[in-house]
């Protein structure tokens, strides 16, 4: 029955594409998480009244973040072609999409991280200082754990944006479900393939959202 509804869908290709999409998503989510937290911490710590208060550095980081967020993703991929080629030696395939995916979403996530860190009770930071904590201890034992539910729900939102970015990256030949929908579906007028790819992506998004909500809830003891 399914083969009647989706005559042109080849499951082998679907699974390969799904794997590629998940591969790009996982690695870019990980990269975004690390880079975003670094940038977010830098934004937070250099802000006025915080541990590394530094107006100049804060403005520099903030403008880097704002500028890269302003570039449309599809253009960012093109802009990053030379960089991608330089570090990976190729501009095709799932790996080639990773730099653009991470550079494109880390600044967005960094802002979410900054918001999460701002929510951490100033009194708790003061208490840690009064106990004689080093800045490193305050970052790793106070700031990050206390903002973790916000960091997790932030990365969930970002991950979902990343899944749609991976589909867009398909247009430049990165592989994945977006690529399949475009090449096999749209170009060959096989609407059933487009629909099947959509369903797969929606399911992946749902799973990510569910996982994110679940983890965030588990670790929130407020």
């Amino acid at each position: 029955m399914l083969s009647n509804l989706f005559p042109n869908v080849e499951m082998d290709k679907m699974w390969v594409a799904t794997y590629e999409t998940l591969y790009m998503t996982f690695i870019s989510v990980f990269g975004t998480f690390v880079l975003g937290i670094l940038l977010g911490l830098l934004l937070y710590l250099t802000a006025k009244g915080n541990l590394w208060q530094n107006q100049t550095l804060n403005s520099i980081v903030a403008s880097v973040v704002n500028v890269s967020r302003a570039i449309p993703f599809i253009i960012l991929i093109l802009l990053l072609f030379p960089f991608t080629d330089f570090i990976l030696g190729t501009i095709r395939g799932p790996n080639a999409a990773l730099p653009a995916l991470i550079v494109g979403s880390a600044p967005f996530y960094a802002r979410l991280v900054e918001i999460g860190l701002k929510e951490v009770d100033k009194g708790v930071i003061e208490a840690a200082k009064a106990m004689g904590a080093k800045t490193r201890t305050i970052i790793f034992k106070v700031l990050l754990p206390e903002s973790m539910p916000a960091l997790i729900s932030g990365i969930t939102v970002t991950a979902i944006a990343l899944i749609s970015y991976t589909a867009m990256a398909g247009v430049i030949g990165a592989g994945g479900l977006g690529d399949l929908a475009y090449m096999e579906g749209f170009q060959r007028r096989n609407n059933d393939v487009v629909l099947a790819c959509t369903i797969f992506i929606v399911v992946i998004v749902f799973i990510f959202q569910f996982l994110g909500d679940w983890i965030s809830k588990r670790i929130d003891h407020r």
Partner: protein
Amino acid sequence: MISIKQLSKSFKTKDQTVQAVDNVSLNIEKGDIFGVIGYSGAGKSTFVRLINRLEDPTDGEIILNGQDMTDLSKSQLRLERQKIGMIFQHFNLLWSRTVYENVAFPLEIAGVPKAERESQVLELIELVGLKGREQSYPSQLSGGQKQRVGIARSLANDPKVLLCDEATSALDPETTDDILDLLVSINEKLDLTIILITHEMHVIQKICHRVAVMEQGTVVEQGDVLDVFMNPQSKTTKRFVQQLNPQEGSVDELKEFITSDDHSEVVKLHFVGHNAKRALISDVSKQFDINVNILQGSISPTQEGAYGTLYVEFQGEPETIESVMNYVMSTGVEVEVIKHVE
């Protein structure tokens, strides 16, 4: 133990300089419970933050155990802070950590190995009366229990000084008393010096040995709690003392007795320490041919003994009243005449 000399702190805002703490000098003895009282904005919170340098002083010295806190390097300051406990109005616990983990936090900071931490943490949790709640999260505790965790945490590195920043201001009166009792017991058990900031006179009365009254960044009055209570000098202190006995000092209500023309004398008696336990009034009425009319009275217990005030009217012959007065004064009770016999 702690000697504070000409300590000042000013904050610069865009268009003005605010003198939060202004030339404060204090001496605090080892084992003292030292209270600093003032209305909000008096600079008392800034003052306590200067002691462990959460705020850097603009001027002055803080000598703690012979060590000048103001000329420590950053890393020396961190080590010194580990020996100063601090508790806060809003407890400032980490919600992401259990009671056990919160109490263990200062030990982690001080680099105590994990194996040694356990017995210390459990001991502290027991000391503050939270045995069995080790695995609870702060959100599962009441306000009083949270402050107990705060106290356990502040004691973890075996400090010599405990700073309390409005530690009971967010608690209801009953819980406040429980926490104050706990502070007194650790003060005695551990010979811990406690510096306590509050706006509640009740707190000073209940546990402090010595008190300083702050107003607009300066200390307007300081000394033994009993002395300050007995003879408040500044207006602010008088207002605070009156908080304790709201009806006291409202001489207006005694007008009827004060303005009457009969042979009577209205006096205010101050009882301090042991005197507060004397049966003075029944003594007087037995020994002298006189009628005693009690108008108003109250008694307030403090750490250094009780103190009370009593308004009475003596009715009788002027000569008898005079000898009564002499007798009363000879017992050491202070007398203030409100209305003289005609």
